[in-house]
């Protein structure tokens, strides 16, 4: 695995992503997903909302880095608020 040039932070990052996907897969099996219409005027399932959250969070982090450029962990607070909004209204 040395050729993959692992670091602790990237390993933690991927473990969190893997755990999130596992949790959502288990949730999907236990409580089957039902599509619903949100503010984007398109049907989304729980999995879709997770995808929108993750993708949006990547852009929020990049925007924070480009515009603010300091205190990067605070961007995660914005991501959390964004995630709550996506799961509530999208």
């Amino acid at each position, binding site marked *: 695995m040395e*050729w993959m*040039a692992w*670091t602790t932070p*990237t390993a933690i990052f*991927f473990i969190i992503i893997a755990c999130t996907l596992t949790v959502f897969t288990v949730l999907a099996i236990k409580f089957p997903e039902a599509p619903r219409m949100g503010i*984007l005027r398109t049907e989304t399932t729980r999995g879709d909302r997770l995808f929108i959250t993750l*993708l949006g969070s990547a852009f929020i982090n*990049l925007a924070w*880095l480009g515009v603010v450029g300091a205190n990067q962990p605070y961007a995660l607070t914005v991501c959390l608020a964004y995630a709550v909004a996506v799961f509530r209204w999208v």
Partner: protein
Amino acid sequence: MEKTVNQKAWFLILPVLLLVAFSAVIPLMTVVNYSVQDTFGNNQFFWAGLEWFEEMLRSERMWDALGRQLMFSAIILAIQVPLGVFIALNMPKSGFWSSFCLVMMSLPLLIPWNVVGTIWQIFGRVDIGLLGYTLDALGISYNYTQNTFAAWVTIIVMDVWHWTSLVALLAFAGLKSIPDAYYQAAKIDQASRWAIFRYIELPKMMGVLMIAILLRFMDSFMIYTEPFVVTGGGPGNATTLLSIDLVKMALGQFDLGPAAAFSIMYYLVILLISYVFYTVMTNLDKKGG
């Protein structure tokens, strides 16, 4: 009737998962690892944090390449989609000539990218190329190695030549699936040619047309070989599109860290736009179906 749920079916997609993990997920993870480190070769890495991302976000070079890339994709779509639809509308609907047109139009699609690049590179040369020589003889100044406008025209015309057929073939397939009854009804209503196109052909073609737009967008946004062979990204940086710049950075300069940060951002943009297209497409399908 109750639907049978059998979770064992998941095992059937295991080979695909393994293949994707091997060819996409593991390399992508490696790129993420590279993006937060610096290396001077010898497989030795040093922690750099988010430095490369910051550098790339502030890099004029990347924003310029992104601008050129977006302009290229926008021009390609603006030409190929209407032209492809126009060709499909005017193609013979059946018989020998229909098959003949289909075969002729498939030919450019079968030619590999680097060969297309070489064909156009020679075609456009003023000394030995038919196009370049003819334009020069007509007194039109044309030199794609020195003139930015000529370079852009060449790579755009080349892409149009290579890929418009794909849009035309998909649009033609969409047109062929429209039952005759629709046209008969339009005739009874004395609908104009435009009205038939606007209210029958276009809505019925929309599904395949969206696929064509998605394919053409993704392909043009990731294009590398053809412009690289023809112009090499020049004159200057005039046709240095995102992937050309990325390869220069990663392999030419061996700046793996910045190149990895660059490719992650590139990937995110493609993922976002493809997701938007995909959502629009599925919504259209639901409306249509």
